[in-house]
């Protein structure tokens, strides 16, 4: 189908028309013509306030719990939700059941998503079964399309992390780190502050994140590998990454969009939909994260999509699973929080060109003759998602029915 975007702003730092307004004719995903006052009788015209086009957005961290937990989300439902949220590429975490620790699992995900408009970029486990004992066959998985290796949110021992960082260099593999040391605050599940005291819950200090981040940075320095720190949440972590980058290490990092939207005090009435890992922190942390985004210290905004069914979420706070079903709203949340702080192209960079570069994927540039995928959105229209438009099978989200200052058109 042909579409004609009328007066769309091109948001693509690699395009010669970056930040320019043009009419764009697209046929089956391919840009046929870019110009002004284009007319095509056969094309469907798309007009909207502040219409924009950018290369298809990349979600660098999502749990697609298929196989094993298809009642939470299937490949199909996850990707449908991603599409609604503007994402055209999704990095799937390896903690399915069975774990993605071999090429068959990688191939399964790729085959299941072949006919979908959203591409899955599988990540593989670092260790076999994510048990932290033996290295997984990273090279074989890499050969078959795995793009990053991590044990997601499982704690990785020092020996395993060292070995993985060393081993992945054989094929220039990327290691994903989740900085969380469970030994500092065993049993903690919310930010450690006056709020954890009032809730009678054990807290998770910023040290529980920063100690592990320091270790991983030190190991990176030692092994000279390549690491993406998938999620950070504290002011101190931003500083650690800043220093590591300054020292020239091959390190990048990301945050979950919802980390910017809530603070620990929002969790005080035990809403299990706000139980996430890392926990929601405080205003100075959010300020530091935003500054980190602006300064380029934080490269990526991801969804950290973690769908959870009713039975695992509608529980006493302590027993509820962590996570938010967030892939449909992550970009919306990012724009909503950051639209007064950063320019559109700065925000888009964090969900498109930056993750694409870190992952080293082939990535489209807005120019004539180029095939997509593209993300087309409007910054002049509001969008909200009710239950009827919710694509994830899980509804553990504080963002259902919330209104955002951006509409994803396709």
């Amino acid at each position, binding site marked *: 189908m042909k579409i004609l975007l009328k007066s769309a702003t091109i948001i693509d730092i690699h395009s010669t028309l970056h930040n320019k307004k043009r009419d764009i004719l697209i046929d089956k995903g391919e840009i046929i013509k870019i110009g002004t006052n284009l007319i095509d009788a056969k094309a469907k015209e798309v007009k909207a306030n502040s219409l924009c086009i950018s290369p298809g957005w990349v979600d660098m961290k999502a749990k697609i719990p298929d196989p094993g937990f298809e009642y939470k989300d299937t490949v199909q439902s996850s990707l449908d939700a991603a599409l609604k949220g503007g994402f055209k590429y999704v990095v799937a975490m390896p903690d399915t059941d069975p774990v993605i620790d071999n090429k068959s699992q990688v191939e399964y995900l790729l085959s299941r998503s072949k006919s979908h408009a959203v591409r899955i970029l599988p990540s593989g486990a670092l260790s076999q079964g994510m048990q932290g004992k033996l290295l997984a066959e990273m090279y074989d998985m890499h050969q078959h399309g795995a793009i990053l290796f991590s044990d997601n949110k499982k704690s990785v021992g020092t020996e395993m992390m060292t070995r993985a960082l060393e081993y992945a260099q054989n094929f220039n593999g990327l290691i994903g780190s989740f900085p969380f040391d469970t030994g500092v605050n*065993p*049993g903690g599940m919310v930010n*450690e*502050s*006056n709020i*954890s*005291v*009032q*809730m*009678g*819950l*054990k*807290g998770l*200090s910023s040290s529980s994140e920063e100690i592990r981040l320091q270790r991983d940075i030190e190991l990176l320095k030692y092994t000279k590998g390549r690491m993406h720190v998938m999620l950070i949440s504290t002011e101190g972590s931003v500083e650690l990454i800043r220093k590591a980058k300054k020292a020239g290490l091959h390190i990048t990092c990301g945050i979950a969009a919802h980390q910017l939207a809530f603070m620990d005090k929002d969790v005080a*009435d*035990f809403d299990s939909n706000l139980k996430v890992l890392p926990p929601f922190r405080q205003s100075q942390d959010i300020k530091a994260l935003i500054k980190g985004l602006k300064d380029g210290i934080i490269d990526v905004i991801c969804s950290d999509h973690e769908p959870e069914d009713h*039975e695992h979420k*509608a*529980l*006493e*706070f*302590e*027993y*509820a699973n962590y996570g938010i079903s967030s892939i449909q709203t992550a970009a919306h949340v990012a724009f909503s929080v950051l639209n007064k702080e950063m320019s559109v192209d700065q925000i888009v960079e964090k969900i498109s060109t930056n993750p694409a570069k870190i992952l080293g994927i082939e990535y489209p540039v807005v120019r004539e003759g180029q095939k997509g995928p593209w993300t087309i959105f409007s910054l002049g229209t509001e969008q909200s998602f009710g239950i009827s438009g919710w694509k994830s099978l899980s509804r553990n989200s504080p963002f259902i029915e919330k209104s955002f200052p951006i509409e994803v058109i396709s």
Partner: protein
Amino acid sequence: MNRTLSVKHLLGIKDLTKEDIELIFSQADEFKEVLNRPIKKVPSLRDVTIANLFFENSTRTRLSFELAEKRLSADIVNFSASTSSVKKGETLVDTVNNILAMKVDMVVMRHSAPGSCLFLSKHIDAAIVNAGDGTHEHPTQALLDAYSIREKLGSLKGKKVAIIGDITHSRVALSNIYCLKKLGAEVMVCGPSTMIPKHIQSLGVKVEHSLRNALEWCDVANMLRIQLERQEVSVPYFPSLREYSMQYGLTKEILEGLSKKVVVMHPGPINRGVEITSEVADHTQSIILEQVENGVAIRMAVIYLLAQTRRTEKEVV
């Protein structure tokens, strides 16, 4: 004086006003007088059905509530289950549905998970009394503690109360702090630094690690039970009960060596010889048994007042 509470449930002291607490106390005064009559029973709640849901072991609190309910002539049903024996969480939601079907008016619940009473209050149409939700709140214990101090010392205003022991794992510390502060007392927490939550100063309390300093400072020492069973960690918070007792055990010698007479409290059950010795438990300065007695009166008052609120609401509807 307003004779109704500002809340529909007793989920925690945090939600109560000072007036609420004073109302509960004055109502408890009346019930305490009833409890000293030959016939210790009033017909006030003949139209009320109460479910006691105890998802965690408790002997004293459960008995105290049951007795309070019986003294008020309420119909009661008891339910006890261990959260560990069934899949966590499912029990509560399933039980909730059962309760709804039984048309009970009030639920008294003890549960190990912080926030579980709030969770329940969002799902069922019954007044909820929190009988301890893990390390969050245990409001009736805090009320009876403050009531007992008031009885002994006349007023809470300006009194210095030290809460001593395992603050992190205590189910009563937080409620006690809220209650005492609302009534104008000064509060100190004292214990090993591994067992005092960081940021607890944000509640406006002093923190002390020396038992002697705490005792020299306070008018009342509330000695908490060491909750050995709550230490679900691979490295325990202190090496041995012996060493704990060496630092934080209250003995007769220490108590009598102080420059003033400090009132000794304990929420029970006591580990005799660990946090306090038998001599201290049975000492003339100890009000441990008064606490137990007052517990019934306080719980009667809470249940009675919540039932009143519920009746008024129904009439309005």
